[in-house]
């Protein structure tokens, strides 16, 4: 594309956006609305992931020690656990501490039983694995160690939780893919429409001797601009919305930790900008071909 052509293409793209204000606004509107929805959903999805991850990382294994184990056996067990490559954290919980915790939970109803020899609870190790999904396998392995009375990892709870999060993630992913497909369809359709409405213009250009690329360039740039604006506006909107949500959550739902703002914006930009501009460009470039055949 020679220099003249370059300026012509940009100038023409801008002029045409201006000339077809109504279509421009509507097209950008469609892109903004779909990407805003998609982005909003990605936000929720990212945070759901984040939250389930943090929940999962709190899943722990409890290894109860045989009451009959000797100190040497206990020490050996601790060392084996500390050396285990799948374990991230190993903490000893004495039977006294276990009882104290239970009392805390039940309140001052069990007062006076501290230090009692009748404490029915055993000593234990609380363990955390690097990979929460490995909990089951690791627990089985540890059950075969000597001096271990019982290994507990809330089998039902953990598996239920994982199944539930897997289900939520599945649904979330389905909705996300649905939204993404919707966005692709709608944006492409909208851009095709702007081309369709101007098919007469395209044909007349061909009649006076324009090459296909001479005609295509302004349309492609137009698609690019529509896609770009249509991606940047929802990003700005989501930035604002997310900042407000973060404030609200940190004030009202302190136990939730959300993905930090910059990380989210990077993630969103990574998808929305290519999606908007890419579809804008491809939408114009390809929907034009059938009108270029004169």
């Amino acid at each position, binding site marked *: 594309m*020679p220099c*003249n*052509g370059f300026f*012509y293409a940009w100038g023409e793209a801008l002029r045409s956006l201006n*000339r077809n204000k109504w279509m421009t606004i509507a097209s950008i509107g469609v892109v903004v609305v779909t990407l805003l929805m998609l982005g909003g959903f990605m936000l929720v999805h990212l945070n759901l992931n984040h939250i389930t991850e943090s929940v999962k990382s709190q899943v722990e294994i409890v290894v109860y020690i045989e009451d009959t184990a000797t100190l040497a056996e206990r020490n050996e067990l601790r060392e084996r656990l500390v050396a285990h490559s799948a374990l991230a954290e190993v903490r000893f919980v004495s039977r006294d501490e276990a009882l104290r915790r239970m009392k805390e939970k039940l309140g001052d109803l069990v007062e006076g039983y501290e230090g009692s020899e009748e404490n029915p609870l055993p000593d234990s190790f609380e363990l955390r694995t690097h990979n929460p999904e490995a909990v089951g396998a690791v627990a089985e392995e540890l059950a075969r160690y000597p001096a271990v009375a019982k290994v507990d990892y809330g089998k039902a709870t953990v598996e239920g939780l994982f199944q539930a999060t897997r289900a939520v993630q599945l649904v979330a992913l389905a909705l996300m893919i649905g939204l993404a497909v919707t966005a692709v369809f709608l944006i492409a359709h909208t851009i095709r429409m702007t081309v369709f409405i101007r098919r*007469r*213009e395209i*044909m*007349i*250009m*061909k*009649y*006076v*001797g*324009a*090459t*296909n690329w*001479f005609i295509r360039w302004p349309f492609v740039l137009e698609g690019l601009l529509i896609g770009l604006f249509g991606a940047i506006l929802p990003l700005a909107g989501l930035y604002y919305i997310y900042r407000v949500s973060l404030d609200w959550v940190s004030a009202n739902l302190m136990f939730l930790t959300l993905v930090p703002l910059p990380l989210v914006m990077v993630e969103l930009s990574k998808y929305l900008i290519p999606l908007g501009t890419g579809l804008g460009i491809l939408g114009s470039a390809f929907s034009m071909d059938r009108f270029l055949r*004169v």
Partner: protein
Amino acid sequence: MIEAEGLYYCYEKNGDYVLNDLNFKIDRGEFVFIIGASGAGKSTLFKLIIREIVPVKGTLKVFGHDLARMPRYRVPYLRRNIGMVFQDFRLLEDRTAFDNIAFAMQVTGASSREIRRRVPYVLELVGLPDKANAKVCDLSGGEQQRIGLARAIINRPAMIIADEPTGNLDPENSYEIMNILRSFNIRGTTVLVATHNHEMVKLLKKRVILLDKGRLAADEAKGVSAGAL
């Protein structure tokens, strides 16, 4: 410039031939009227010349190139050498007269300085110096037709093809338009005009090709003697 040999065309498969065994040759610098009743095939012949369509049989050579064999990407360059006035104008209704004409120059990569210099000149030529900034849809039928002519001549093409260029014009303006075409012709441009304005044909005394239901019924050097008029 244009050579037709056994040229056939039909729009529908197995339909009637709209152009039927045309044989003629138009040399560089000629001025030719194409006449014939409504539906005789004049516009179809022009569509073939700008390669909007390709012959179903026979050959058509323009500027020495066989159009049936011309690759798609060469077509724009063919069209830049042919200034065409369309029977239905084919202007961009929602743009100004200036833009419509400038358009044909931009296509060839002309600079905007050149465009600003030349467009007012051709607008003057077709008698519409004060309509540069009027939208095409706000122009009268005859005015639109003249914008169409202005667009056709803006690039000083080697050949001008005008399909019924005076259908919406009063005799005076028609004569003006014919004069413009003649002046281009005198400076070497080949001119083909399809028209129903037989008065003009008689007046100009140029070569006349008469089509009758797609057949070449007459090809006379001087319009005045064309038997069918």
